[in-house]
């Protein structure tokens, strides 16, 4: 039975991947652009899941790492002429360092205090980005406009399709890495620290190193996503990265499903498309409609979309197994 499930899982995964690859050829450029952003958010939520879902450290400040990644890419492209594809790993590296450095003092904080500290980072970010001292690099209030990259020579795609497929490729790589990490010794250490920190330490897990590295890896993911996001939107400005962005990431995380890799995808689809749907439903109070959607999702699926699907799957599996046993 377990063998069969794995075979089905692989088939489903390949089918989903094929569908995702075909998407830009079936939809308009604008929709492709929206789905590319959804993929970017999926990478962010994956990073956030590593930190909050698997390691239990709440962060309300991932918008700040997203901003750092985005600005790194923008400054490298605008001021130093670095090709766009090279800025993505560089942004990830910069955020890895920042994340780790932030994770070290954060070791002293738990639960609500950690949430507050990370939120402080998120709220401070726009002001820091507007700071006159670094205005020469960041462009101040005006931000930085980036030129949209062209697909490499010989590839018969338009710019939006190329960016979508590039983002999809990066997302797949990040997801595979995350899956490996979670199912390895490191992932088990993280989960142990989340569930029973004292027992974990007693067993010899270096709590400080693993918790700080969780922050670092999580920030790396968010930085990579930020760089991709900047390239796709072609514009970075301090007001793109307010505290609301961090809250949105947390919303996506919870709605999608904590401690779940597939949850990142569901959460990303939620935070990208539900505000647009809410806008269509009501021009006067779109955020109220968005709130209603959030409440409905939280009420109907308390363990997130991923949790709900897992529950539904196991229920149908049990029912068919039961039926088969009876037959």
């Amino acid at each position, binding site marked *: 039975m377990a063998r069969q499930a794995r075979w089905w899982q692989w088939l489903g995964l390949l089918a989903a991947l094929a569908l995702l690859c075909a998407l830009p050829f079936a939809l308009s450029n604008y929709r492709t652009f929206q789905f590319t952003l959804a993929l970017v958010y999926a990478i962010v939520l994956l990073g956030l899941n590593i930190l909050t879902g698997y390691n239990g450290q709440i962060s309300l400040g991932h918008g700040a790492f997203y901003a750092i990644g985005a600005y790194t890419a923008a400054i490298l492209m605008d001021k130093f002429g670095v090709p766009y594809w090279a800025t993505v790993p560089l942004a990830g590296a910069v955020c890895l360092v920042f994340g780790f450095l932030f994770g070290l003092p954060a070791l002293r904080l738990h639960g609500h205090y950690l949430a507050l500290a990370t939120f402080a980072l998120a709220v401070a970010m726009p002001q820091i980005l507007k700071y006159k001292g670094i205005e020469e690099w960041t462009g101040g209030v*005006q931000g930085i406009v980036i*030129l949209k990259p062209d697909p490499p020579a010989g590839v018969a795609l338009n710019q939006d399709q190329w960016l979508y497929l590039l983002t999809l490729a990066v997302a797949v790589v990040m997801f595979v890495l995350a899956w490996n990490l979670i199912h390895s010794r490191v992932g088990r250490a993280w989960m142990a620290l989340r569930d029973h920190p004292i027992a974990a330490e007693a067993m010899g897990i270096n709590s400080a190193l693993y918790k700080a590295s969780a922050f670092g890896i999580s920030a790396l993911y968010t930085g990579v996503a930020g760089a991709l996001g900047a390239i796709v939107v072609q514009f970075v400005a301090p*007001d793109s990265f307010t505290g609301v962005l961090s809250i949105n990431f947390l919303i996506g995380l919870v709605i999608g499903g904590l401690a779940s890799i597939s949850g990142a995808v569901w959460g990303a689809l939620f935070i990208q498309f539900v505000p647009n749907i809410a806008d269509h439903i009501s021009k006067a109070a779109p955020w109220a409609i968005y709130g209603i959607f959030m409440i409905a999702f939280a009420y109907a699926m308390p363990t997130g979309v991923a949790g709900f699907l897992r529950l539904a799957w196991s229920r149908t599996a049990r029912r068919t197994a039961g039926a088969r046993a009876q037959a």
Partner: protein
Amino acid sequence: MANAYRALAAALAASLTLAPAAHAQKRYGPGASDTEIKFGQTMPYSGPASAYGTIGKAEAAYFRMINDQGGVNGRKLNLISLDDGYSPPRTVEQIRKLVEDEQVLFAFQTLGTPSNTAIQKYMNARKVPHLFVATGATKWGDPQHNPWTMGWQPTYQHESQIYAKYVLKNRPNAKIAVLYQNDDYGKDYLKGFKDGLGSQASKLIVAEASYEVTDPTVDSQIVALKASGAGVLFNITTPKFAAQAIRKVHDIGWRPLHFLNNVSSSVASVLQPAGLDKSVGLISVAYFKDPTDPAWKDDKAVQDYFAFMKKYYPEGNAADGLNAYGYAVAQTLVQALKQCGDDLTRENIMRQAASIKDLDVPMLLPGIRINTSPTDFYPIEQVQLMRFDGKTWVLFGDIVSR
């Protein structure tokens, strides 16, 4: 032989009749059809610059009036106006939506210097007309690098150079303080002012203070500027902050020679909230008729404007200069579209916008005409100084050209 000549004559005659027919062929870009012209804009209906939102509403009302009168060349004008909250990232998002999702023919009067800076490269890369932008920054008149972007109002640098010349002439030894918004709009005004003062700039300007558009107030900056001992103040602020600044200057007992940038000269949106008695003596420039000025009481253009506001935008404040501004720009657009005839491609729209000759928009001050050419993307280049007397703006001096 005669037969050959006759055949040639017949062929020539036939080709002549065909030529005008080919000329009258309809050509449409995205958003244009036999029945409508669809175009878009972003306006700050919410956020720190929401006082300007009334401009979008006045323009929409004007196009409704034109549609009631039969439209332009038989086509209805369909304006899609979206809120960007004066936030450049939202402007980028909404413009992408307008161009790629709604497929508008062109963008009209997108408002805000930082907002337009964010979308300028995109509009020019996509070759979508970025017309009559609602900002006076000097960089919009650059057909060589940005052939699809065109402003409308007199440039900020031109305006502040006029203030500088006034100071040099009337208060040559004054100490000057400047308050400016820390973005491209504020810096454009500041540059023009310093250029106008020339070599005296560093000597005369004793204090500069800036603020962010997201700041709640500018009171502390005003106090700091007064402490510099300046006798002249150049106030480069958008309406919300202009009202705060004018009120604070008066309340702390400072009576400088106070220049107010034209974008915040609206009596209804700025001077009334600040306090009309506190605004006496303010100097600014004008290029269109202020509806509150009794000098225009019997002017036909102003009477038409009041009738239009009463019928089509009754919830708007007819005395608000911002509405008169929107009315005047909308009139300019209708003229440009009329010139396009049946060729409603993006290229032709840009071509017609860049070939307006001596257009007399009735709402503009007498003597001010709109002129554009392929090398001149500054439609209005003339202004006149005005002083506030406690009730209305009073024009003085002559019309000054760039």
